[in-house]
């Protein structure tokens, strides 16, 4: 995709952040994120990932440097305006659920958006429907399962319809169904033209779903580029305390065996297809597995 200047949605310039206790979390971060991108932020604990995303919606104010969200510099804009544009879905849903019913939980998120009563009820109903929470509508959120709570937490941000969606560790503690749900949601929001930022340690999820990755270490961005490229460079992986995804390890192994592999085999379907045709060609294996 061609990146145009007018599509620039997040601009971070020489950003530093010092916590009140003296910890320096960001040491001069420069970053451009364009409208409609899916960007992953990776790196070991304490690298500054969470601090960085918290500057996007004004939870933290830069110590020095600037962060622009669209045309607004975060220091000069009210947080209420920023949270409308940037929705952060935090890792632990328990940190935000408090209402008597699932419905009220959504209503709380829509409180300051100047909806009329009818619009409000419509939006609540739509959100509950979309996130398969309708049947829990009048139940207390505390009796939901882990996956349902996560869905509710995500719904409570998505109902605000932010332009930029930030997920903090979306796959942690989720079963296969939960991960599938998040994967589909990301695809759907991407097709709607939203910008999606995902902070994650889950390399398999990243290689499958995130085209561009930013790797952070020690308060700095140490690599920024296509996820498959970043996750296949040993030196970068070592600094970022990451390991290669399984398919990249496999493709490197195949290359070592002097087998010519296409570039896109880090995607599961492509690898299966490649191996299928390779075995068919080389060993004469036909459909059904018999030579």
């Amino acid at each position: 995709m061609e990146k145009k200047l007018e599509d620039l949605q997040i601009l971070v310039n020489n950003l530093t952040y010092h916590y009140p206790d003296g910890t320096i979390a960001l040491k001069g971060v420069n970053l451009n994120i364009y409208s409609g991108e899916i960007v992953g932020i990776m790196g070991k604990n304490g690298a500054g990932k969470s601090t960085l995303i918290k500057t996007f919606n004004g939870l933290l104010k830069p110590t020095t440097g600037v962060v622009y969200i669209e045309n607004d510099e975060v220091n000069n804009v009210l947080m209420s305006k920023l949270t409308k544009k940037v929705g952060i879905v935090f890792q632990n849903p328990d940190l935000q659920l408090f209402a008597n019913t699932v419905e009220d939980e959504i209503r709380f998120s829509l409180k300051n958006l100047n909806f009329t009563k009818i619009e409000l009820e419509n939006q609540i109903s739509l959100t509950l429907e979309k996130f398969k929470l309708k049947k829990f509508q009048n139940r207390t959120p505390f009796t939901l399962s882990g996956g349902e709570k996560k869905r509710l937490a995500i719904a409570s941000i998505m109902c605000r319809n932010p332009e930029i969606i930030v997920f903090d560790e979306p796959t942690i503690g989720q079963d296969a169904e939960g991960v599938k749900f998040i994967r589909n949601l990301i695809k759907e929001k991407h097709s709607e033209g939203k910008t999606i930022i995902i902070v994650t340690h889950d390399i398999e999820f990243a290689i499958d779903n995130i085209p561009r990755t930013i790797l952070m270490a020690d308060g700095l961005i140490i690599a920024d580029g296509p996820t498959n490229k970043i996750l296949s460079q040993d030196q970068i992986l070592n600094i970022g305390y990451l390991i290669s995804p399984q398919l990249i390890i496999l493709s490197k192994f195949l290359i070592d065996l002097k087998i010519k592999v296409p570039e896109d085999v880090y995607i599961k379907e492509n690898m299966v297809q490649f191996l299928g045709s390779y075995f068919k060609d080389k060993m004469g294996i036909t459909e059904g597995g018999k030579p």
Partner: protein
Amino acid sequence: MEAFKFIQKKTIIHILDPRTKLLLAIIYSILAIIFEEIFILFFVFLSLFPFILAGQLFKKWIKSIRGMTFLFLLLIIFNTLFSTFSRSISMIIRIMIMVSSFSLFFLTVHPDDLMLSLLSLKVPYNIAFSFSLSFRFVPTIAIEAQNIIDAQKSRGYEMEQGGLISQARNLIPLLIPLIVCSLKRAFHIAESLDSRAFGSTKNRTYYYSIKYAKKDWLLTIILISLFIFGVIVKIFPEFLPTWFYWKLKV
């Protein structure tokens, strides 16, 4: 809560036995309760300063006192309305003595030593352990509270809104998740303690031990003498010059 969080330092106050420091906090609090005269309370308060300075705690102490400004304001308003202004001043000094002496204790006693000192006072192990555990979790809960504020703000929650009642209502989205998370953690801790056979034997041993040294005895004698002197003054007020009993006219 900052005023009660242990900080590792190597000062004479830090290396004192926790029991001595507990005795100090208790005796100072009793003195603060039994006297109401501004001057006496003020001298008792002043006598805490050498400990605060020796423990290099001045900055933390100022912070804790500053944190109570609102309470002091309430004390002045209510006491002046229902009693006298003079009384409100003595109440403020009284509270400052109690808070200072206890923050001196908590700032300089490691949570593990806190448990050992409670045990040496024959407090049952279960109670001593939960007491020290609750102090250990103060910073964890503070971090969690911040995360909750961040999560709610991200969905449009505005903390500073409306009058006093709506501000109180505004706390609900913060307090409920905090309570729920704390309860959940308590259950997890209980399970993990059970899985490590907590309380399976009555007599347990301890890796560290605390010792009453010479300086502890010395301070104990000084503290007890101070206490006895205080009691004598309370019973025989004529023991002190009359200006000690001066009161504000209002």
